[in-house]
Structure formats: C-alpha cells, structure tokens
C-alpha cells in the first residue's frame, strides 16, 4: 500500500531518450495504466519503479522511501511480465511459492498462502504440474499468482494479458480489476491496448516519445483529450479530424474546413477566438460515436450533406464511411439503421462533442 512518485525522472539509453522529465504521482490503492504505442517509454517507466532499469536523473519514491539506489528485491514490489517469466524447471506450486521461499517463510504458511492464491485464481488443480504443460491463460494466472502471493507495496504489470486470445483477454480484464479491488494494492499496469486501459484503470497516463501527454480518468482521456495525439490514440474507430480555420462574419463564428463549414455558438466561437494562438491553423475533431446521422428529408438545422461509401455492420453497432467532400468521415450508427451505398444523408456534430486543437502544437483549445 503506497504512493509512487516520480520527480523530474529521465531515462536515456545512450543518446536515445526513453523517458523525459517525468512528473507523476500514482495514488495509494489506485489502478493506474501507462498507455502508449511501443517505444513510448511506458515499459521503461515501469521497469524504473521495479529497479530493473537505473534512473538517469530525477527521483522515484515508493511511499516515503527514495528507491533510486535500491535493488529490486529491496523495493517490496511484485511484477508480472509480458512473457510470464515462469521458472521452467519448477512446478506451478514452486513458482507461486518462490517469493515466499526466498523470504524463508515457514513451510506451512507457505503452503497455506499458495493454496489461497491458487483458489482465488482458480488454478488449485494445477499446482503439481510443470509450467510448460500449461496453456497461455493458465501460465498468465500462475504469473499473477506469483505476484500476489506476498503482500507487496506495489504491483507492476507489464502487458500481462497481451498474448492471450481475444476471448480470454476480455475475461481477464474483468478478473484482474476485481482482484485489484479485492487486494487494494497500488497497481501500475502497462499496455498499448486502449481497451485494457480504458476498461480497467482508475486513471490513465497516455505516453508518447518518452513524455506524458495526459493523465486523467478514462472519461477525461476519452472526452477531453489534451492534444491530438491522445485524441487519435484513444478511441476506435479513430476520431475524425479536419484542418480548419476560425472565421468571423457579422459576429457569427464558424470553423471552415475544405469540405464543410461548421457554425459555432457565439460563446464557443468567442472562447476559441480568445484562446487559439493561431486561429487560422486549427484542427477540428469529432468522434464517430458522437456524429448525428439523419436521413435527407429530416428537417434539422446546421446539417452537413454526406454520401454513404460503405457500411461495416458489427452486430452491436454499424460503422459507416461517409463521403464528405474529399474526406471520409467515419460514424457509428445503430445496427437497425439500414443504409445503402451512395445513399445521401445529412450529419450533425453536437457542439458539446466537438474537439478543437491548435494544429501547430496539437494542444486542445478548451471551449
């Protein structure tokens, strides 16, 4: 049970920057996700907490202890690895019991604890097996078991379920979250999969190029992306974005793209005019789920005409590609809305759901 704090932490591999000036606090008992594409520095960050990588500069605290110079074994952390890192020459029981064996826990306590953990993870039938006889899902559980068998201050999970098949991954997401809630241990979880991060985390840090782009709750990350990187990285299908500029005509504001002109409310227009450093180079974003799709004859104001290109029915919902000028706009519509190719429609972009970014810096302009 501990807070993990990074103060101006940087990590370089020679000339290569892995993590740059990281300032972050992972709260007590929190399920915290480090999310980003490969090479963004998320694993380096995790490995620095574990003590498997040295810190080039800055300070890392676990609880009140400065851990920069502590060995991994002195940090009271537990880690689950992407490839599970089970000891192939030991049985499942011996693997889970390993950290206890190292701590010289009495035989009986050890047995009891391993059995408890095995029960929680539903692997009590497998304790005598060799680990190479297990399926990927079972190995993952053993690796989790080895992490939770002692009471560490912090759990570090490095893409622990990324090698499982999709079905099992869906199940494990829920199970890991439940387990974390039950054990109430500060958890740092590294993943490149936004669904894992969004579904499990209390808070997420989105990283790119060694720098934190945004820290926030899943809701904030999704609905208030701090910049274009976060907006583009999170959400599937991706956010629709268009280069645009702010226009003012007779006190009325609009965002003009090559394909359409979007009329803003006076309040929003004024805010953008006030906050945008370069009103001529902006980016307009709208998530597929937030687009209102209407049949042509519906009488609604502020509509933009489009034409259906293709539809991708997925059962729960349908993704539709709409031709908008020279661009393709992706929208999500209810599965019962039957659309045909080349059908003419209109779309609306509710103002509370549009995102405006400065095109040069990528930074969000709050409205």
């Amino acid at each position: 049970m501990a807070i993990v704090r990074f103060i101006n932490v940087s990590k370089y591999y020679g000339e290569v920057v892995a993590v740059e000036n990281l300032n972050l606090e992972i709260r007590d008992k929190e399920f915290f996700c480090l999310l980003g594409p490969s090479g963004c520095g998320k694993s380096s960050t995790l490995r620095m907490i574990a003590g498997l990588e040295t810190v080039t500069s800055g300070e890392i605290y676990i609880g009140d202890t400065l851990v920069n110079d502590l060995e991994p074994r002195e940090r009271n952390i537990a880690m689950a690895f992407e490839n599970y890192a089970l000891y192939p020459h030991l049985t499942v029981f011996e693997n889970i019991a390993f950290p206890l064996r190292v701590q010289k826990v009495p035989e009986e306590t050890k047995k009891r604890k391993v059995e408890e953990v095995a029960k929680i993870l539903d692997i009590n039938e497998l304790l005598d097996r060799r680990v190479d006889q297990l399926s990927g899902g079972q190995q993952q559980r053993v690796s989790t078991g080895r992490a939770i068998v002692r009471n560490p201050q912090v759990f570090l999970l490095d893409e622990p379920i990324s090698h499982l098949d999709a079905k099992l991954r869906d199940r494990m997401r829920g199970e890991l979250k439940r387990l974390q809630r039950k054990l109430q241990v500060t958890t740092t979880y590294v993943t490149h999969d936004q669904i894992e991060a969004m579904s499990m985390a209390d808070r997420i840090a989105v990283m790119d190029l060694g720098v934190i782009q945004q820290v926030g709750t899943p809701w904030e990350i999704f609905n208030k992306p701090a910049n274009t990187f976060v907006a583009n990285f999170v959400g599937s299908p991706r956010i629709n974005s268009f280069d645009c500029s702010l226009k003012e005509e007779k006190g009325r504001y609009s965002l003009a793209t090559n394909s359409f002109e979007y009329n803003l409310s006076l309040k929003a227009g004024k805010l953008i005019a006030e906050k945008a450093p370069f009103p001529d180079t902006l980016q307009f974003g709208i998530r597929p789920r937030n687009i209102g799709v209407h049949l042509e004859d519906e009488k609604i104001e502020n509509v933009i005409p489009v034409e259906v290109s293709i539809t991708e029915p997925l059962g729960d919902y349908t993704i539709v590609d709409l031709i908008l000028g020279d661009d393709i706009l992706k929208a999500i519509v209810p599965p019962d809305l039957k659309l045909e190719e080349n059908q003419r429609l209109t779309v609306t972009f509710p103002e509370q759901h549009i995102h405006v970014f400065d095109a040069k810096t990528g930074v969000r302009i709050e409205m």
Partner: protein
Amino acid sequence: MLTKKNKVMLSVGFYLVIAVILIFTLLPIAWMVITSFKTKADIYSSIPKLFFKPSLKGWEHVLFTMPTVRFILNGLIVAGFNTAICLIVGTLAAFSLSRFKMKGKENIAFFLLTFRMFPPIAAAVPLFVIFKTFKLIDTQLSLIFAYILFNLPFTVWLMREFISSIPVSLEEAAMVDGLTRMQAFRQIELPLLKASLAAVGIFCFIFAWNEFIFALLFTQSMAKTMPVQISQFITWKEVTWENASAAGTIFVLPVLVLVFFIQKYLVIGLSLGTVKG
C-alpha cells in the same frame, strides 16, 4: 501424402544410411579391440583374420609392465581440471557478455573466438618457453594451462549463446522476487543450463583427453598422457600393434562411460535453445 509402401521404403532407407554410418565409425574401433587380442603373427598375417586364438600379451604388457594407470590418471586430472575451470570461468564470463550492457562486447566475444581459430602449434613454442621458465615442463599444470587457452574461449562463446537463449525476464522476475543477481543466476539460470553445461563440458573434456601435440611437447614421463604413450608404441624397430590396440581400448573407455551417463543432457544441450521463450 505418403503411402504405406513409401513409408516403409523411407524407413528402410533411413536405417540403411544409419547402418552405413555406424559401420564407418565403429569398424576401426572394433578392429582395434580385436587386434588387442591378437598375437604378432596374426596381426601381420597377409589376410586379415577374423577368427584366431586370442592372446592377452598386449593387455598384459599395457596393464602390468607399463605405468598405464598413471597415464590414465594424468589424463583424467588434466581433462577434469581443464573442464571444471573452463565451465566455471567460462560460464561466468559468458553470463556477463550475454547479460551486461557494455561497450564493445560483441568485439570482445569475437576476439575470444579468434583464440580458437589460430593453430595450436603456433602457440606451442612460446608456451614451451614460458613453461620452461616457470619450471612447469612435465607437470600436469602445463597441460591444464595450455588446454584452457583453447577451451575457454570456446566455452565462453557457446555458453553465451545458451545463456542468451534464456529470456532475461526470468532473471528479472527472480530479482523482483527477492534474489540478488548472482542468486538469480545460480537458482534460476544455472538449473536451466544443466544440459548445455554437460554438452560443453564433454567437448572440453574430450579435447583435453585426446590432445596430442601439447602433451607430446610439454610432458616427458611424469605428466605423460595416453595419446603420447600410444604413439610411442611406434618405434624405429617395429610397431607393437597388440600393445597399441590394448592401450587404445583402455584409452576410449573413460570417455565412453562419461558420454553414456550424460548422453541425455548431451542431446538436449546440442539442440540449442532449450528454454521456451
């Protein structure tokens, strides 16, 4: 799809090839054993004899009139120490070359391998001078040193490959679980390297056991090994084949026994990558 007939043909062909290889490799050994029980007259008969009246003359000479036990013991000591030192030092060196981040480690590894590439005879003269200076001629120590020079680089090179095939995360997991790096190496990686160590060890042992040139140059009587002794059955007057064959038979036995006991590891060790990633 293979038909049943084709399958039979294939396995017959397979065994035929194996039989030919076995005959090719085992015939000289069998012939040596047979020769060791022959008399001079039978050995020199113009038509090689398969059936003859066995004689133990060669064996008697080798076992009772010569200090064969000492030669064997010398060989075992030299090969044994050479193997042990190579495995211990070589594995630790291989571990650091495989796991630690350091500048030019590929160059170091390649530099080590080049030791193995240069002809042993090129090192013989300088080594002789060195050993003479330190009064090591005709001691087991001279041979141990000389063989380490060639076996150690080879051990480092091979063990580095074996260690690199073990995911580093195993070691990291053990360190997180509470071990020091050395403990992690000993408790996690070493058990996984058993087969590889056996394979590399047997190579080192056989090299030292069979080596002739250095043994001939650096030993005279006290530290003499079997290969040198066997060569001395060839004299200006005659070749005593029965003695040479009996000594040769004794000479192959220890290696045969050793390989028999560790053959399981040998096969696993030789098929690189024993640990699944």
